[in-house]
């Protein structure tokens, strides 16, 4: 099967520091991929490079066969690649509902009417449990609610590939289950998902395949049970 996302030889340096080295990764359409790795191993940098927030130094990235390397982030979003930011970056002067309105207005293939925007926005907020906060400002939300908003805003872009960067940090067990369920449902509707997460319970419950980064390199890629038993992965986590 042709890969939806195809990353080849991706490299990124910050000055003299190599954050990512020669990463190869293919994600099939409809797949659920978990991406793990110790703090500072380059997971978020990887997301930033393929979504265009950062420019990578080497390698090539394609989505559905289309080369992304020269495209600005908004065009990648419109092609169906949406991401959440690890540290939530809400639009502070807009309400929670209006935060979703931005991708609903801009990222979709078709132009939505006012009423459609409102309806879809409310449905998404309902899915992440923020329906009753629609009229509030992001700063009135808790950290956890802001994470949910971040995820909902990425979902509002109507992606083919959704990358959730630590959407569950700080959530209670019940809330983690809720978000995992939500992502599973989304995947059931055909959305390919990369989940970056430190909460192993969630990653193991969610992922069909697991990839592990250590110090900017991909050290393991395979079935989740096998990857967590991989000696290099174990060493990286125990060595922390």
């Amino acid at each position, binding site marked *: 099967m042709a890969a939806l996302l195809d990353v080849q030889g991706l490299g990124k340096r910050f000055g003299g520091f190599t954050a990512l080295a020669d990463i190869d990764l293919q994600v099939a359409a409809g797949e659920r991929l978990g991406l793990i790795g110790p703090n500072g191993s380059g997971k978020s940098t990887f997301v930033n490079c393929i979504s265009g927030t950062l420019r990578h130094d080497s390698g090539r990235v394609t989505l559905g066969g289309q080369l992304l390397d020269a495209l600005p982030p*908004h065009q990648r979003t419109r092609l169906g690649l949406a991401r959440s930011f690890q540290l939530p970056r809400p639009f502070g002067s*807009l309400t929670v509902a209006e935060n979703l309105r931005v991708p609903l207005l801009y990222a979709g293939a078709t132009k939505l009417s006012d009423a459609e925007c409102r309806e879809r926005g409310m449905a998404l907020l309902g899915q992440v449990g923020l329906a009753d906060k629609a009229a509030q400002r992001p700063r009135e939300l808790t950290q956890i609610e802001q994470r949910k908003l971040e995820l909902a805003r990425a979902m509002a872009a109507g992606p083919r590939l959704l990358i959730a960067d630590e959407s569950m940090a700080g959530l209670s067990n019940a809330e983690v289950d809720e978000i995992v369920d939500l992502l599973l449902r989304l995947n059931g509707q055909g959305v390919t998902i990369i989940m970056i997460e430190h909460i192993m319970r969630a990653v193991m419950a969610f992922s069909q395949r697991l990839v592990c980064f250590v110090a900017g390199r991909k050290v393991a890629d395979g079935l989740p049970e096998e990857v967590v038993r991989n000696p290099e992965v174990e060493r990286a986590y125990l060595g922390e």
Partner: protein
Amino acid sequence: MTGDAPLSRPPMGTLAFWCWAAAFTGVVYLAGRWVTNDYVFFAGYIVLQYVLLATAWNILGGYAGYVNFGTAAFFAIGAYISTALNKWLGLPLPVLILAGAAVCGLIGLLMGGLTLKLQGVFFSIATLALAIVTQALITNWEYVGGAAGAYVIRPSRGPLGGSYVEYLFYTMLLLATLAVCIARTVERSAAGYGLAAIRDDEAAAEAAGVPTMKLKVATTVLSGALMGAAGAPLPFFVTYLDPPSAFNLAVAVNTIAMPLVGGTATWIGPVIGAVLLSIVQEAAMVTISSAVNLLLVGLIMIGFITLAPNGIMGLLRGRRR
């Protein structure tokens, strides 16, 4: 876009707002026909010119958060294009205004394309540089008088009957109303949400699908064109145009102070700020002296920045919560 929409009654539709604005313009026009004292039109022109400038500035500075220090450049270019075309071809005022707007829109396009990749403060510095460069160029443009300036003959009668100053007043009334309607339409359209997203977090806006560069450039063109339109009637208003009067510090300062005082989030803020500050200055000029004007504006601006950073509209909204 102010956020309380889901709770309050639905805001007026765009079409309705344009109709109200047209009705307002008509009423002021009819009322104006009764006025015989030209001072009213002189003072009114200044107020409306500032409504126009503050609104134009706010579309970029308030909605998108890109602070333009180069208002004086756009305003002066509008005035000088109009002076030059008037001398060369003697075109009617509406055509001069369109020409001034077109040239300034083009300059906005060039400046935007070159500088909007720079974020925040660097953009602002670039706009300041633009103002300095244009002033130097115009000071050396002999056709329109260079450093010495040029006299422009103001016809004694306007084409609608009444004095020419009265005609200038109605022209500015129309331009200011148009600008306010455009600003409000932008604010409530998809572009308004895109600009707010840019102001809040540009990278997140991109990630949400907002074509930030395109939107910023388009906004700079619109803002610049409106500023150019504001400057085009100036030569006939002052009848003697030289670089110091076109590149007036008061214009540059007021255009930023007025939206800040009124509130930058919505269209009404710059209108309130412009009306209030120009009345205060007019009063100070009549009662004290013209020298205290800018001092007064500076003090008011400092007061608002420290005590009410969201302006008068921010204060009002805060009270309602």
